[in-house]
């Protein structure tokens, strides 16, 4: 009817992602069993971005998120704290931790809680290195998480949602479907019911987190997953949960599980 038809934007595009002509990234996969009847196919947010933004992630020379990876490589080898240790003293090289990012958040038996990779890193810093905690979504932490993603790129996201993690997962699921704030919008309203549609100037994706940390062109830095959650909740005119809060840890486990089967992609590039 109108000249404003926007069907050109509808849905994810058909592009495929191979990084450095070498690392195959799965950006489309059958939905995990727990999403049966809800979503058939899961897509990485990469598939919803413009060709220009997509291109920046196809070659590490063009990916501004790699700057953070490099500074984390230096931090990995740097001694810090009262024990005179560096990450490298115990973990040898970042590559030794390949595959770890793909399974976090994860139940920690000793602590009796689900931990994000940030919590695990801070635990190593405080209890094993005698070093100061890094700010949960601060630059040093987000860079280190980007390095952990970097060494796992191309591996399938595979977080466990059963056993002792299940109650946390259920809590995250409840948050995902709760309509917060004065606009009364849940994650599901935008990312489950309307992915592929335009909301004003934004092309809605499924809100997957396999690409985190993401370098956003909007604020020209690496963004931690809880900061993105905070932004999305704030946009519903709600009081957000705090970065690192039990609520966001639970939500992260749940959202990560919606992406089981996609590749770890971080540091990704988004607008």
């Amino acid at each position, binding site marked *: *009817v109108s000249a404003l038809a926007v069907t050109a934007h509808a849905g994810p595009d058909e592009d495929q992602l191979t990084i450095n002509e070498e690392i195959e990234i799965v950006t489309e996969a059958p939905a995990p069993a727990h999403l049966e009847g809800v979503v058939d196919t899961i897509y990485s947010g990469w598939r919803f971005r413009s060709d220009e933004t997509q291109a920046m992630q196809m070659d590490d020379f063009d990916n501004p998120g790699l700057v953070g990876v490099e500074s984390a490589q230096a931090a990995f080898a740097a001694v810090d704290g009262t024990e005179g240790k560096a990450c490298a003293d115990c973990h040898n090289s970042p590559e030794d931790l390949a595959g770890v990012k793909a399974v976090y958040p994860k139940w920690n038996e000793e602590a009796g809680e689900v931990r994000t990779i940030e919590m695990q890193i801070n635990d190593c810093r405080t209890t094993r290195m005698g070093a100061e905690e890094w700010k949960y979504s601060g630059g040093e932490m987000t860079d280190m998480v980007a390095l952990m993603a970097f060494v796992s790129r191309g591996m399938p996201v595979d977080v466990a949602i059963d056993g002792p993690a299940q109650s946390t997962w259920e809590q995250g699921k409840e948050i995902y479907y709760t*309509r917060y704030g004065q606009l009364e919008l849940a994650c599901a*309203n935008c990312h489950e019911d309307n992915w592929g549609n335009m909301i004003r100037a934004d092309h809605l994706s499924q809100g997957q987190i396999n690409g985190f940390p993401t370098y956003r062109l909007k604020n020209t830095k690496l963004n931690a997953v809880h900061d993105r959650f905070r932004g999305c909740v704030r946009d519903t005119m709600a009081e957000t949960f705090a970065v690192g809060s039990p609520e966001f840890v639970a939500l992260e486990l749940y959202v990560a599980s919606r992406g089981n089967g996609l590749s770890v992609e971080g540091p990704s590039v988004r607008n």
Partner: protein
Amino acid sequence: MKNTLGMAAIMAFAGSGLLAEAVAPAEVAYDDYGAVEVSLTGAPGNVENGAVLMNKGSGNCVACHQIAALPELAFQGEIGPALDGAGSRWTEAELRGIVANAKKTFDGTMMPSFYKTEGYIRLGNGFTGKAAEGDVPPLLTAQDVEDVVAFLMTLKDE
């Protein structure tokens, strides 16, 4: 109490050009289908301001709807149906109900309730991410709702 004003008083004020006190959000009378028969202010809606609210501030209807009559607005959303022809599809009372609280017309709809002040979960202080302090105003004022309805009534089928 705002509703003690009564219809006669509202009419009298409207007739004399003075602004009557608006029907408070909690006092709006929805019928079984979600329509609201009585004007929230008694004053006629301003079509031009209604058009402005499509784009700006707390209205921002184009975030979710296309409106062919306002081609100058860039990036019209595709969450809800296009509003073209809404003034032919719906009566004024129905549109007032949809704008004031669409959930009374469309059960569970994603569309926000623009003239409501209660029943929120983790209500924030605008877009700050902080908790709201005390009562919040509705997303649109009573007169805004009337203005938006007046604008929608101009969107007739060709």
